[in-house]
């Protein structure tokens, strides 16, 4: 049984897996900014404290509408499921505005595209739990 996306448990396990990924450690080297991931239609979200290829911690929000971070990426639950399940490349999703960069520098994100792809790869390993239906914290 996997953890459901989105949920506090999913986010914590995701951060742990990301931190143990050697590929993320190498591709995320130099990145310094926490990222807030928001699920637009449920208002839930979590911030990953990412630094130099490490995931140093996670903060879960039952209501992320007033949460802040240097980079904020938001999308509907359906779009997140599309990305995490690998049906759409995250960078294509950004360029087609299916993932919305609410805050932050898209050029910087594009410079870390390999890290972004590795983040999706790690999320795929974790899976979506019970078919990606929204869960609580």
């Amino acid at each position, binding site marked *: 049984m996997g953890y459901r996306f989105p949920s506090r448990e999913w986010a914590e396990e995701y951060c742990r897996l990301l931190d143990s990924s050697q590929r993320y450690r190498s591709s995320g080297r130099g990145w310094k900014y926490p990222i807030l991931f928001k699920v637009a239609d449920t208002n839930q979200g979590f911030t990953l404290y990412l630094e130099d290829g490490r995931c140093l911690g996670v903060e879960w929000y039952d209501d992320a509408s007033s949460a802040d971070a240097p980079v904020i990426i938001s999308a509907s639950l359906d779009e997140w499921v599309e990305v995490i399940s690998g049906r759409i*490349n995250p*960078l294509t999703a950004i*360029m*087609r505005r299916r993932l919305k960069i609410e805050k932050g520098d*898209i*050029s910087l994100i594009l*410079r870390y595209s*390999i890290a972004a792809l590795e983040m999706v790869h790690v999320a795929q390993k974790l899976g979506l739990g019970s078919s990606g239906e929204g869960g609580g914290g």
Partner: protein
Amino acid sequence: MVELGFPRRIFFREDAGEALKMLLSDRGIDSVLVVTDPVVSSMHWFKDMLESVKSVARVSLYTGVEPEPGFEVADGIASAAREAGARAIIAVGGGSVIDAAKSGLVKLVNPKISLDQVAPFTSIGVEGSGVLLVAVPTTSGSGSDASYGIVLTRRVDGREKVALGSYELIPYASILDPRLPKFMPRRLAIGTGLDVLAHSLEALVSINSNPVSDALSLKAIELVFRHLPRIAGGEGSDDDWAMMHIAATMAGMAFTNSGLGLAHAIAHPLGARLGIHHGTIVATVLPYVIEYNSRSPEALSKYRYVKDFLEKMLGAPERGSLEDHVRALYRGVGHPVRLRDLAGVSEEEYRGLVDEVAESALRDPDIAFNPVVPTVDDIADILRKAY
């Protein structure tokens, strides 16, 4: 679903001065800044073109754009435009001049912005400013007259090429006068022409490609294979020059609406470190990237489509792969197929750069759209093979 962006108007005619007159009159613009470089500004046709523009608008000049311009050029152009009260910036030159003009426009309408903040979907204040950007390309290569990109060189602790982009920076109008590229030195015509091929082939297999960008890419590839060899051989007709000129713009539209890839991601740091012309370096790396990307079934299918087209429609001899056709084209136009054949690159110097260039390429935004996700070792391997 895709979002597409193009210049509002494209004039393809043998009189840039007349086209500019029409455009400025149509828009009621009576004051312009013309941005160019010292070489173009000394040419007779440029002076004639200015006379045409002067018949409808007050003209100020900024002629100081250097090849591979740095970030500082933006403030100089913005300041000149502000002083002139310019309602249009007209960039007359190659990619460096057009990119410099784009950066100047950003600083003109938004003096406090850092150019590093220029990004797709980020409002930078150009739209709605009322200041038009008009491009008159004098080379047939960069596609900057139809693209949203800017490439500038940052000169801190060495040279780093920085690629930026915003949909607001697609020029309002592109004026394609096919007489102008004929003034290019032959070597530049080949290097810029092969840059068109690299733009088209990378846009074709980008993960963001779509039917519109595919159509533009495929036609531009055809035009390069048809017309560049005659230009390179010194026997280019008016039609050859005209077709290469519009191919460059089509390729610019293709990659703006699709993306580039690994060849450009490698060429930016490698070209900056070696000081070699962008088109020359990206073309030399390209066949090795095609070979690498062929592990993607989607990319391979498109490469095969191009290969079949070249053989069945253009009458090219059958070859094993698309990269073989590209190398044959290089031999036909006298372009090196290996980096070692480029003047000034010693093996020792090159080998010492490989790891650093591979790391930089991995951080280039163009890599985001490559059909295969490379590791730093993959890139280093491509770099070693390309030598």
